[in-house]
């Protein structure tokens, strides 16, 4: 059985700061990683591989050569082959275009039995790429899945949405978005990641995917034109003294604010 995980190389969101002085987001020279939510998808894939016979897990990422090391981390988590698809246009804000490129890459690699994605990406938070990918590929989409497995030549997914938990069985192939509560992803060590051989990564250009002549893969439909501080103005006061003193002062302050009622 074959699983493909679509994962995203992102700037570590916990490191991103908005610089009030310049009015700009600082994104340059920050550490990069596998988007947290895609790590849950990778973990789910590797768990299926470990618990069943004859399962291969491929991972697809889009970007430039800087993505190699992130793909290696995904391989160190237990995936078999990594595919690096030429990018250069990626923005976190265009899920349909991302999905279009991923769909072509999957068709070129060979449509698998199961495609796993994260519920959102750590930079965009749109939560739309998985559904768009399913539409491009003409597949069922199940999200957000707190459990996914491949029993009896089918896909079984437990989806929790709204106030209901539903268990579905779908024929191969389908797209499933793995919820962040589904598992705790394993963390490969730096050494394990470094030991991944470069020949386990295969490259694909947009030309290989037949996308170069189609301008829509290269032009930006959605652009970020400005940013501003998202901080809500707060008092920022600190209460000093020992625990008893400071606690009493806090209660007094909240009383004055009228929020203790």
């Amino acid at each position, binding site marked *: 059985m074959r699983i493909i995980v679509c994962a995203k190389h992102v700037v570590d969101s916990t490191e991103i700061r908005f610089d009030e002085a310049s009015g700009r987001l600082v994104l340059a020279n920050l550490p990069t990683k596998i988007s947290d939510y895609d790590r849950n998808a990778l973990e789910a894939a590797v768990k299926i591989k470990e618990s069943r016979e004859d399962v291969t897990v491929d991972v697809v990422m889009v970007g430039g050569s800087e993505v190699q090391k992130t793909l290696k981390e995904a391989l160190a988590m237990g995936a078999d082959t990594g595919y690096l698809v030429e990018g250069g246009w990626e923005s976190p804000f265009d899920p349909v275009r991302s999905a279009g490129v991923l769909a072509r890459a999957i068709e070129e690699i060979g449509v698998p039995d199961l495609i796993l994605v994260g519920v959102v990406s750590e930079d965009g938070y*749109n939560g739309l790429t998985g559904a768009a990918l399913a539409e491009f590929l*003409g597949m069922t989409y*199940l999200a957000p899945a707190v459990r996914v497995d491949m029993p009896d030549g089918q896909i079984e997914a437990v989806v929790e949405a709204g106030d209901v938990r539903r268990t*579905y069985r779908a024929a191969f192939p389908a797209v499933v978005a793995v919820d962040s509560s589904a598992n705790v992803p394993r963390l490969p060590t730096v050494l394990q990641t470094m030991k991944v051989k470069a020949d386990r990564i295969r490259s694909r250009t947009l030309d290989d995917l037949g996308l170069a002549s189609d301008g829509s893969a290269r032009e930006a439909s*959605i652009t970020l034109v400005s940013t501003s501080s998202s901080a809500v103005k707060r008092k920022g006061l600190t209460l000093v003294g020992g625990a008893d003193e400071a606690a009493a002062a806090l*209660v007094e302050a909240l009383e004055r604010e009228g929020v203790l009622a």
Partner: protein
Amino acid sequence: MTARTVIVAADEPAALVRAAAQARDLGPEGVDVVAVVVAESGACLFPRGTDVTGMAERLSGVADTVAVYEGSADQCLQGIAASEALVAAAKEWAADLVLLVDGPLAREAAGRAAVRLRLPCVGMCEKVEYVGDRITIDRAVYGGAAAGRLEVAGGAAVCVLAGGGDPLDTGTGMGTAPGIVERPAPTPGVESECRLIAEEPLERSVDLAEARKIVSVGRGLARADDIGIIDGLASALGAELGCSRPLAEDFKWLPKERMVGLTGTSVAPLLYLAVGISGQVQHLAGIRGAKVVAAVNTDPKSPIVRNADYTVIGDLYAVVPALVAALSARPRG
């Protein structure tokens, strides 16, 4: 200039009213608002929880037309059916903009419809506007690190509004009820071989979005057993208990419905007391609506300090019992 037409849709009736009201405010020229509903024999499937007549009444003053597409209750087909209805409506009414409110079905419907309509799709939108012929979208970017403005080239898009926000129970109450037009079930473009094999309600012990006071705990807590201490403070305050993402998703010390943040629940209480929470942007993005934010933290350099109104710098294991004592000592009356 002729009026624009905007298609609106949502998982829940109040959210659909909100989408229609936003659509109405989109541009200085008039906007025709067409609300898309999928229903089976008059009972709404998308949005869920009302009937067609009731939904139309609630849309008085904000929608011009309610387009009802026949659907089936087959759970496996809900997302596909919703997307097909959006596509059919966008084509029939020549709409440039399809506007939804975030929800599980809305996400699937929006992503699928955008592909079929060959339109860009953007989620987590706070505000959508036409500036001339361009669509501009205000939304949090990079997990809440900043507020951003996006521009969509081409002037047509599928946009999903971020959930939360003030639900509008009814439209303005003025103006006429929208006309209802019925349409047959569109032919699905995707063959879905899928069966529902089990369904059960999810026990939800709390809805933090409705809470007036919240005490929330983060990684400053040493072990799961200590949650009792925080719970004691919550009781003393008459508050609900919440937590940051690591406690719910990594450690699993608390259920997901108690998680506050960008991928958890957005809250807007009178008081939000963050205990042992450092104040990552994704967490702060979930508490923007709080009237007063207070915090207990050992680190004066923690981001929570400048994002709170009052912070006690200290060890929560000393401060929390002290707070409980101070609260009990308050004079009654």
